[in-house]
């Protein structure tokens, strides 16, 4: 299938997904449901953007929450302090995240695994301590309150919760489509090559540093979109959105859903939010339950649910193929079973 026609097909799928999402509130007319989906949009985009690094590039960032917090705070601050429209503030926030990601990425991307994980965490905690310290601007540990002004644009009125819902769903669909096309592009395959063999890539003419930096910047930019949605949802920003636990939760979402399937992180985010809401409703001992589930996954299953399913499916396909090739092995030109992706 050619690139152009697959793009057309994916756009069609995205459009259908958006229409379904837009219709859902008419079927489930509850505020809780739309609120859940807005949060899911924020965390789904955020987790998928982290997977651009973890799953596709082999860069295990432990500080991706930096961009969530940055997106949240800068969007809310721009809207509060400057008379700009929402799309302008949106683009300014993305631009700021790109600049920050360029600086942080330039320092971090060539470090080894463990140093990369902790240096990215350190930069996130730096943002967190800046937020706590600059009380006059950020509201300190009380969070940024006072609401986010929402002037209407293009007929979208974000003071209406259904419009917020539509806007978030639209962003979710568009961002996922964009990220999907990035990982399916030659650039995406270069990332996989670096992940699998970083030593070999330079021999094929790849500038590893530049490709990694680009991946880091792209992931940061998308991560901040998650923060923007969150800031619209809570009408402000809270230091917790920049705290290390956000990164921990995102990693857990990846582990829940799976990192080898593109929609794994979105699935993981859904499971995480459901788990989170159910557990907080049932018990005050949130940590014991959540921690238990985390240990179960990390030590028991050792991979995400969609990873597990896709491995099972490819195993079955593999065994069917070997069975088929065994029966036809007398035939000339029998092909060996192709390996999975």
């Amino acid at each position: 299938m050619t690139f152009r026609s697959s793009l057309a097909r994916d756009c069609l799928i995205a459009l259908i997904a958006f229409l379904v999402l837009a219709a859902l509130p008419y079927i489930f007319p509850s505020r809780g449901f739309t609120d859940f989906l807005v949060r899911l949009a924020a965390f789904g985009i955020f987790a998928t953007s982290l997977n651009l690094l973890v799953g596709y590039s082999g860069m295990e960032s432990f500080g991706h929450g930096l961009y969530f917090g940055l997106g949240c705070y800068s969007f809310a601050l721009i809207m509060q302090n400057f008379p700009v429209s929402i799309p302008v503030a949106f683009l300014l926030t993305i631009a700021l995240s790109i600049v920050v990601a360029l600086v942080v990425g330039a320092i971090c991307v060539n470090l080894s695994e463990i140093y990369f994980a902790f240096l990215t965490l350190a930069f996130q905690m730096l943002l967190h301590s800046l937020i706590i310290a600059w009380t006059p601007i950020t509201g300190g540990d009380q969070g940024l309150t006072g609401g986010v002004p929402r002037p209407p644009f293009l007929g979208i009125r974000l003071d209406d919760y259904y419009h917020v819902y539509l806007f978030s769903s639209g962003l979710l669909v568009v961002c996922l489509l964009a990220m999907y096309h990035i990982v399916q592009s030659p650039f995406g395959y270069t990332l996989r090559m670096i992940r699998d063999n970083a030593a070999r890539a330079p021999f094929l003419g790849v500038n590893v540093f530049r490709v990694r930096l680009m991946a880091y910047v792209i992931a940061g930019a998308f991560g901040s979109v998650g923060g923007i949605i969150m800031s619209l949802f809570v009408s402000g920003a809270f230091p917790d959105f920049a705290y290390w636990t956000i990164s921990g939760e995102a990693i857990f979402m990846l582990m829940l859903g799976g990192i080898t399937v593109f929609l794994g992180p979105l699935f993981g985010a859904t499971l995480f939010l459901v788990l989170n809401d159910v557990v907080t409703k049932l018990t005050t001992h949130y940590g014991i339950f959540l921690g238990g589930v985390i240990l179960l996954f990390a030590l028991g299953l050792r991979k995400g649910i969609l990873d597990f399913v896709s491995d099972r499916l490819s195993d079955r396909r593999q065994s069917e193929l070997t069975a088929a090739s065994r029966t036809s092995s007398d035939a000339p030109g029998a092909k060996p079973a192709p390996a999975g992706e």
Partner: protein
Amino acid sequence: MDLSALGNCLISTSCLITQTTSGLIIGLLLFMVAAGVSLIFGVLKVVNFAHGTFYMLGAYFAYTAYQITDNYAVAVLAGGLGVAIFGLIFERLLISRVYGSPVLMQILVCYGVILILDDVVKLIWGPDFLSFGMPEAFRSLPIVFAGGVIPVFYLFLILVTLVIAALLGLLITRTRYGKIIRAAAVNPTMVSALGINTGVIYASVFVLGGLLAGLAGGLAAPVRSLTAGMGLAIVIESFIVTVIGGMGSVAGALVGSLLIGLVRSFGSIGFPLFTEGLMFLMMAVVLILKPSGLFGREGR
């Protein structure tokens, strides 16, 4: 930001002495946690993100032991030994299953353990801040030296932690055990080929790390308020220390901890709200200039 206050402090002996002592306390207690993190990473190549939780448990164990026996020495030892045993269980049951796994998997296991234990601590000891109270023996008037006020307990803390640091240094550099763990850090396959049970060595490093963190928790208990989640700040600082000092280097951990302690103590005067930021900046600078850390081996 208050640079004039910092300037005033630096030219007054009393302020200088007070801040230096408190910096030393912060640094030396941090060292006991950071040394464990650094050793565990050096030997096992595992990031024990739950090490701050060890420290927290040490403080709570010591609290209960102190309530029962009313003897501070017993309390500190109970903290140390209790956490050493906990470290053994933690290593055998959980962490040994993710040796060689991706870093994120190890972090995830630790994250789960942190969540669980913070909640367990809240269940057992309650969600409020606990205060240990100053042990009887140290309730004398503080020593005044050149205008600086130094509580007796601070002197005791400095002395004890320095002795522990020296003993740890001797253990690593002078004993057969130290030689084995240094060898296991470089080439575990060769060490096991020489007939040494590396599984036992790995577990023992966790016991040692747990002992140090537990003792630190017990020692720190009288000067810190006890709360679930008190481990998180110190574990992040420990990583900053290990990055600054060099992974796996005990000497590096000592220098890094003292640096962080002094930066925190003087930074709290000059940049009261940005002290954490200062530590992260220091770490970033070290990583850019000398990525292996001040005392780390080259060639990561």
